[in-house]
């Protein structure tokens, strides 16, 4: 084609090449951006590597015994994290069990047309603002306001049901129960806002079809809406579980920080993160290594929960596009 054009009559078409500088900037920019994206991987791997490396001494000395012993004695160099691991799992799972119905119920309430739209939006925004309150402020509130307020009620439970080991000690202030309640407050906004988003994404055709064949509001919710939003809700619940396990400040301030194991939910206890917050500053020698071992366990627990959350969202998600 080009050869046929009469060079004498048509003006020469200018095929300008890009200046070298522009090309260099382009390539350089891409490399910088790749390097920055890789930082995520570098940080993640180095967190693992550093925590693992620092805990090798304890891992080789205690092995799996560390998980099942509740000794914590810097004088005799005997360490075990059973109380803290039990505390972490127990507080986070119980708080999750309380928060799931509350959070999902709230999410349904603000996605259905029960009350006017502006009120629903207002509640949605308020719940999300609750997520913005830092955990140390919630801890302060829990120590000075919530715990003194609920103590009489806990005392009644202790007097009535004290024969059950779970309620077997007198509530004297800081303990596992207030920690569970403050965890509920912390993870509620996560469950509510993620459930709200996934309930909103359910196509309105499904709802209309259900109403059309005569289903009532709550039959529709339980049989149609929740099953189609279940992937998002499960993902949000697992995310909240991960957050509850790693939560540090509010729990440290209210759980009582005691390494003595007790079945009672009124007794002071420990979680891995509160143990780290409490002891890491003053620790040295093999205590640091043991704390790092506990940190490694916490990382593995939250990592498993997070990966499982991402997997289940992919597995369960129905595509409506």
């Amino acid at each position, binding site marked *: 084609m080009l050869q046929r054009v009469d060079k004498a009559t048509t003006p020469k078409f200018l095929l300008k090449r890009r200046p070298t500088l522009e090309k260099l900037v382009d390539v350089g920019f891409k490399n910088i951006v790749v390097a920055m994206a890789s930082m995520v991987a570098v940080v993640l791997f180095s967190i693992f590597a550093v925590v693992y490396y620092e805990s090798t001494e304890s891992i080789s000395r205690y092995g799996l015994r560390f998980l099942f012993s509740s000794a914590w004695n810097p004088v005799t160099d005997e360490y075990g994290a059973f109380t803290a691991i039990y505390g972490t799992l127990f507080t986070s799972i119980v708080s999750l069990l309380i928060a799931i119905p509350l959070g999902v119920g709230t999410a349904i309430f603000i996605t259905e047309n029960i009350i006017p739209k502006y009120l629903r939006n207002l509640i949605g925004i308020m719940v999300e603002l609750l997520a913005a309150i830092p955990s140390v402020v919630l801890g302060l509130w829990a120590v000075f306001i919530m715990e003194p307020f609920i103590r009489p009620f806990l005392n009644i439970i202790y007097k009535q049901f004290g024969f059950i080991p779970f309620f077997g000690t007198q509530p004297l202030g800081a303990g596992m129960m207030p920690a569970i309640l403050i965890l509920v407050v912390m993870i509620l906004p996560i469950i509510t806002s993620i459930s709200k988003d996934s309930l909103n994404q359910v196509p309105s055709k499904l709802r209309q079809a259900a109403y059309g064949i005569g289903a009532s509001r709550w039959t529709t919710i339980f049989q149609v809406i929740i099953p189609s939003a279940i992937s998002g809700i499960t993902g949000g619940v697992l995310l909240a579980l991960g957050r509850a396990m790693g939560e*540090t400040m509010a729990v440290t301030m209210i759980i009582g920080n005691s390494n003595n194991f007790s079945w009672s939910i009124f007794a002071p206890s420990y979680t891995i993160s509160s143990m780290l917050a409490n002891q890491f500053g003053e620790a040295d020698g093999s205590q640091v290594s043991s704390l790092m071992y506990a940190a490694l366990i916490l990382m593995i627990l939250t990592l498993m929960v997070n990966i499982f959350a991402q997997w289940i969202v992919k597995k369960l998600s129905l595509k409506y596009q």
Partner: protein
Amino acid sequence: MKNTSQKSLKYNPSITRNIGNKALTIISALFAIISLLPLILVISYVLIKGGSYINLDTLILEPEPPGDDLLSAGGIGPAITGTFIMTVIASMISIPVGVGGGIFLAEYSKSGKFAKFIRFGSNVLAGVPSIIAGVFIYAIIVSTKILFGSMFSGIAGGISLSILMLPTIIKTTDEALKLVPNDMRRAAFGVGASKFTMITNITLPAAFSSISTGVLLALARAAGETAPLIFTALFSRYYITSFDDLFYEMGSLSVLIYNFALEPYEAQNQLAWAASFILVVLLLSLNILSRWLGTLGVFSKNKV
């Protein structure tokens, strides 16, 4: 006509399914009220109780060492500047890295293997407990004294906060850039722009408001974090007076609340309430500002 109630088209409130529906609706309303209650209680306590301890002295003085013979516990001035400085350090690290990473994910490799891995990694990093970030920075910076021989320092605190901000910024940048229509990219290429020009002059400005929403949310989260600071920046009662002070212990609002809430003295507890007033007002306004910014953008989530 015997079964009029079943055949009538009128709403009959007394049949079982309608009673059940009413009951479930009331239960869900109750759940919503229970969920909102702590928010209202916490915010009103912090604003009323904390606000009552706020005066000029509280805002600018240095806190006094704990003791019960004191009339006044001083103020929270150094903690306010400390929180500000450490958040700025964290932003200086995490905003360029996070926005850069987001640009890579959205513009260079939308669904490549490496991009998928980075997305997965940033989700995992977002789930890493904040105290682990503190432990990590303690192990590589504080205990090794790698920063010119200083141990606990404001810079170490800032770096540990940047780890927490990074995943949020990457994620929002990635999603904001994906919302920019491809037509704009093709148009830019069509008039001869290089990829670098296209990103810096077309897509980044178009996604600016959504990205700044994410940055502000990350900032708000970092400013309220305590766990990564308690053994990286530690705490200090003094104002910083020179650049060198960045390499020494630095106070922050959140660590002040933690330390002073556990003191047995009333004066210190009051300072903790005053500090939480400042912190909560700051974070709530950052959140509301970011919401407002999010509604401004042409291609923000709320509009498309």
